């Protein structure tokens, strides 16, 4: 099966790209591993519909991409594209502190997703901790689901958040709307969890709070692996794109979080540009500075990188502790010697952690992009 444009990822960026590409081309496909379109933020309830005329392939995991371009999917075999738009979003950043792997501790977005898919939280005491606007969104969603949000610990100091909001008044209604849904919930700035044990969170500064769940998200890590497999150049960890969202590989465009963490509006603008550019339409230039300002406002306090104790686990898949990594100077050396990053997540979680704690950068990506049944690796026929 062959398309003019295949869009990987049906979050806001991918949906905006589909809308833009669909205006010009009758041969556009949108692929996503979830049951419905919407990505992380609109999970299940997208505010942009999949445009008529665009073929949508839900529950379709792409595990390999080849030049030219061929996408290998788990459920449908191979798919070909003249141009490719990568809108693969981001994942959460975890940071290790004593207790971070204990039952009851979740990723913030992860817990939100679990709640959307039915985990009951009514009456549960939940603390949301970490950094960034996502914490408010998660806390609001948890409260709507009936949780007792006992507090939000934001590591960034208020002195950085206020000027940021002042610079982007357009974001204020959103922020106030979220805050309005969180009346009575303490918002501790310049504060982070330092320990979790037996239902008790200890915060920096000494406060202890008893909780059923602790939801942590220290920011977002771009999903650049698909772009890396195709050989797209990265710039400081993000996929490098030109003013038309085209990557260093001609015909491959990238939109949304992989090109810079900027949230919904940026994802929508990127997607529009990528969809237009990939189908030869005129493109509006990007507005730019927000991504940088967001990163600066919620820049992580280096003290967060010292919370792990020697015995604290860094690589959950292979059970590698902080102390086990200390003798090594770089990611690949540590990986070879300790097997850190060699498990099923292939360093997606511990790679960014060692980047924060030790300044390492994880090595190149190998196929498959996601774990797949061995027999799937043999399939190269598209079965619609």
């Amino acid at each position, binding site marked *: 099966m062959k398309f003019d444009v295949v869009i990987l990822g049906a979050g806001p960026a991918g949906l905006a790209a589909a809308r833009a590409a669909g205006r010009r081309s009758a041969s556009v496909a949108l692929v996503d591993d979830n049951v419905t379109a919407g990505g992380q933020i609109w999970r299940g309830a997208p505010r942009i519909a999949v445009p008529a005329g665009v073929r949508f392939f839900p529950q379709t995991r792409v595990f390999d991409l080849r030049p030219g371009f061929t996408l290998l999917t788990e459920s449908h075999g191979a798919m070909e594209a003249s141009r490719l738009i990568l809108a693969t979003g981001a994942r959460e950043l975890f940071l290790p502190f004593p207790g971070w792997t204990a039952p009851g501790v979740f990723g913030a977005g992860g817990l939100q997703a679990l709640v959307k898919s039915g985990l009951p939280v009514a009456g549960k005491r939940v603390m949301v901790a970490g950094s960034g606007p996502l914490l408010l969104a998660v806390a609001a969603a948890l409260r709507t689901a009936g949780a007792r949000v006992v507090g939000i610990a934001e590591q960034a100091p208020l002195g950085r958040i206020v000027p940021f909001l002042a610079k982007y008044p357009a974001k204020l209604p959103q922020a106030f709307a979220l805050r309005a849904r969180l009346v009575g919930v303490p918002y501790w700035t310049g504060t982070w969890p330092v320990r979790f044990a037996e239902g008790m969170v200890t915060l920096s500064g000494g406060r202890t709070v008893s909780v059923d769940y602790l939801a942590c998200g220290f920011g977002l890590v771009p999903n650049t692996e698909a772009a890396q497999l195709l050989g797209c150049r990265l710039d400081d960890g993000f996929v490098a794109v030109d003013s038309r969202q085209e990557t260093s590989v001609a015909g491959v465009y990238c939109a949304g979080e992989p090109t810079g963490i900027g949230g919904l509006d940026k994802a929508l603008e990127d997607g529009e540009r990528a969809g237009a550019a990939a189908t030869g339409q005129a493109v509006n230039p990007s507005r730019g500075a927000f991504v940088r300002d967001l990163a600066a406002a919620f820049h992580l306090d280096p003290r967060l990188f010292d919370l792990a104790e020697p015995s604290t686990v860094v690589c959950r898949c292979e059970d590698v502790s902080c102390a086990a990594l200390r003798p090594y100077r770089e990611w690949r050396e540590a990986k070879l*010697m300790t097997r850190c990053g060699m498990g099923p997540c292939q360093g997606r979680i511990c790679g960014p952690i060692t980047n924060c704690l030790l300044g390492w950068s994880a090595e190149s990506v190998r*196929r*498959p992009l996601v774990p797949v049944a061995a027999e799937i690796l043999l399939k190269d026929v598209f079965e619609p």
Partner: protein
Amino acid sequence: MTPSPDVMIVGAGIVGAACAYELARAGARVEVIDSGLPGGGATAAGMGHLVVLDDNEAELTLTKYSVGLWHSLAKELPAAAEFWGCGTVWVAADEVEMAGARAKLSVYRQHGLAAELLDERQLYEAEPNLRAGLAGGLLVNGDAMVYAPVATRFLLEQSKAKVTRAAVTSLDDLKAGAVVCATGAMAPALVPGLRVRPRKGYLAITDRYPGFARHPLVELGYLQSAHGDSNESVAFNVQPRPTGQLLIGSSRQYEDATASLLEPMLERAFAYMPGLRACSVIRTWTGFRASTPDKLPMIGRLRDRVYLATGHEGLGVTTSLGTAKILAALILGYAPPIPAWPYRVERFDG
């Protein structure tokens, strides 16, 4: 200025590391240079199966001697080297291969190696996930497994050799009593015209399935794949890691072949272990073996003070320790523990 070492070893893979270890134990002052991470070349890409092979007398002698050395070293290895005396199960698909297994058994027994013939039932008892209808197999008890990157680091640490990270461009420029080129498949870059060709192999690793396979499993046709010169070949070769992960091999192709052998290799594996189809693969990769025309390593003097230790094909983890014993003897001038002439460098000259 520090005095130049007795021996400078270029290449810190398992072979260079073993040479450093052995030479240092014999009293030489040793230094090591590698352009990358110690153990980060073919040594990081391979499977670490310590296996006796009997394609020919020279191979059998070197592998048997080396596997014995690994057993002696085992007690000293750190736990992370995951030494595991698991044996090997050679799988016979039909009666013809079963006859091959019997022949192999008698060769191994003649050489004092413990091995047991498995009939069809015993094969399934040993490995319940093999497909039905196989004829039987041969369990070679003394074979083992090691996690080679950690073993490499251990050998280097034990040697106390200084390890420098630098790319060597000329062996003759190095100041030392003797220089050892142990750069694996990259040796021809330093020794133009050397009869070593990179031979690519694919590997896939799965998530954890404890107990799915209990021994390294190799089809009896493996030697055909390893020793034949066909441009592309695959053979069933599955190895369990102590964690329950499964390494799936093996394939061979010379550097000019471009087809992906991952798929044929997996198909071959499924033909023997159908349950592998459903196992989740988390990573695939390739590595290069250093292949000589007769598939035996080159161990010995190249010219003047320059020595070679390369060409270990698919057996370099196994034969590293034996290689080091031979090379140390040749450099330091005592009698090698096993005859060195089958591995001499000049055997392809003229």
